[in-house]
């Protein structure tokens, strides 16, 4: 576990790319605000949900630019113990976690693969945005994680998803996917803050070669999507080796194009050089989100179109 006193040394390698680096470090000592997404599939009248939460002392304020998202006070409120949670009216999630699905723009009638879906915040968000009318294949490679995903799909009342248990990098061909979301396993640096229980994944797992796994997932996602289709690649880490360099690998291997995207949170262009190595110039069309600017977990999002 990385102590907050060790954070400056750990994150020092990003001094050049993280804006207002000192402010970023100071921000790691603050707790994150609490948000939830209101699930209109089950709660056609949001007022019933908001009034129920208000009776329990929860103040929920709509977040501009993020339909169905609310910021919660007090921020340590145990939303998971409420009947609104139990009945599937709300899904607590960090605000930046909504960004990959904003980039994906799911629509009714589309075949969509969520390659690393568990525990399902993004799968259920896709279902909600597409009004439960997209055909969602929600995949995860681990049975215990898939169990959590299935429970969340049931809790939120989603009827447009099926679940599968494949290793993403060998997901079978044959479904003409319009869109694929790769919310890749990552070191989780963007989640790091004082008192947060999540360790950094690659410290925990020692020898896991995350960039190799991420490249395998992204290339397979690209090969699974139709020509002209969209792949969204996202992580919650700052590390260019898990972000731009993974997308750079795809751009060199396949005929892909980065699609610019508008987001409702402040962000910065992806890096086009890392540790002396030049990367594809189009990577500046990817987006980096930093916790001290967004009040949410740090994120990286790339929207990619399959040209051929």
């Amino acid at each position, binding site marked *: 576990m990385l102590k907050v006193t060790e954070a400056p040394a750990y994150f020092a390698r990003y001094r050049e790319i993280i804006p207002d680096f000192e402010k970023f470090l100071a921000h790691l000592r603050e707790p994150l605000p609490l948000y939830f997404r209101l699930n209109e*599939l*089950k709660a*056609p*009248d949001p007022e*019933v949900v908001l009034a*129920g939460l208000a009776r329990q002392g929860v103040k929920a304020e709509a977040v501009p630019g993020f339909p169905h998202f609310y910021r919660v006070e007090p921020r340590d409120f145990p939303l998971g113990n409420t*009947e609104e949670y139990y*009945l*599937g*009216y709300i899904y607590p999630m960090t605000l930046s976690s909504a960004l990959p699905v904003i980039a994906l723009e799911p629509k009714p*009638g589309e*075949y969509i693969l969520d390659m690393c879906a568990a525990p399902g915040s993004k799968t259920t968000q896709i279902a909600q945005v597409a009004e*439960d*009318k*997209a*055909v969602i*294949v929600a995949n995860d490679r681990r*049975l215990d994680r*898939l*169990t959590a995903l*299935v*429970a969340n*799909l*049931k809790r939120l*009342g*989603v*009827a*447009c*998803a*099926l*679940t*599968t*248990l*494949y290793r993403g990098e060998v997901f*079978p061909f*044959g*479904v*003409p996917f319009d869109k694929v979301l790769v919310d890749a396993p990552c070191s989780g640096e963007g989640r790091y803050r004082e008192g947060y229980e999540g360790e950094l994944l690659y410290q925990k797992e020692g020898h896991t070669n995350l960039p190799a796994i991420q490249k395998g997932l992204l290339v397979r996602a690209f090969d699974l999507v139709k020509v002209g289709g969209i792949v969204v690649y996202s992580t919650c880490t700052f590390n260019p080796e898990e972000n731009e360099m993974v997308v750079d690998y795809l751009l060199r291997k396949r005929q892909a194009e980065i699609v610019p995207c508008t987001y409702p949170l402040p962000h910065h262009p992806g890096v086009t050089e890392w540790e002396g190595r030049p990367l594809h110039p189009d990577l500046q069309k990817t987006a980096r989100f930093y916790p001290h600017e967004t009040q949410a977990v740090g994120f990286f999002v790339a929207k990619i179109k399959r040209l051929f």
Partner: protein
Amino acid sequence: MGRRKKIHKEAKWPRVVSLEEREEVLSFWEERFGIPKETFQDYLLLSTAKNYWLFIAPPDLRPLQNLKVQTVGLLFTRRVSRWLKPTSTALQRFGHLATKNVLELSPSELDRLRREKRLPFEAEMEEGYVIIKCEGKVWGCGLYAQGKLISFLP
């Protein structure tokens, strides 16, 4: 653990039910709760053993049927001996559209029903499955019969 049991590595694709079977299940929802059949027109009805699942009708089902699936769609209705029983999961999703056989309980009645599982109960309604509602929220399925209300809430 019930939920775990549902997920197993050799799970098979559920079958798409015949038009007659679909008609039977959707007529039950319409007749019992007044929820029109058209509510489900965008969905397929699939079946595994005694369960019916609701799943969005894809442009083409065949490519999906080549996938080894763990679950497909939302558990909708069960066949219990010769009766059809709506699941709480499905009622929580579609129950707000019901026009009849909805039981509005007070918070204390709901608490008691969840704790004791059955209550003596008198209501002006036909015996059978009912939708349990409290303060505008649908909680799920109950059974009203012989002066009792029996909980099928999860």
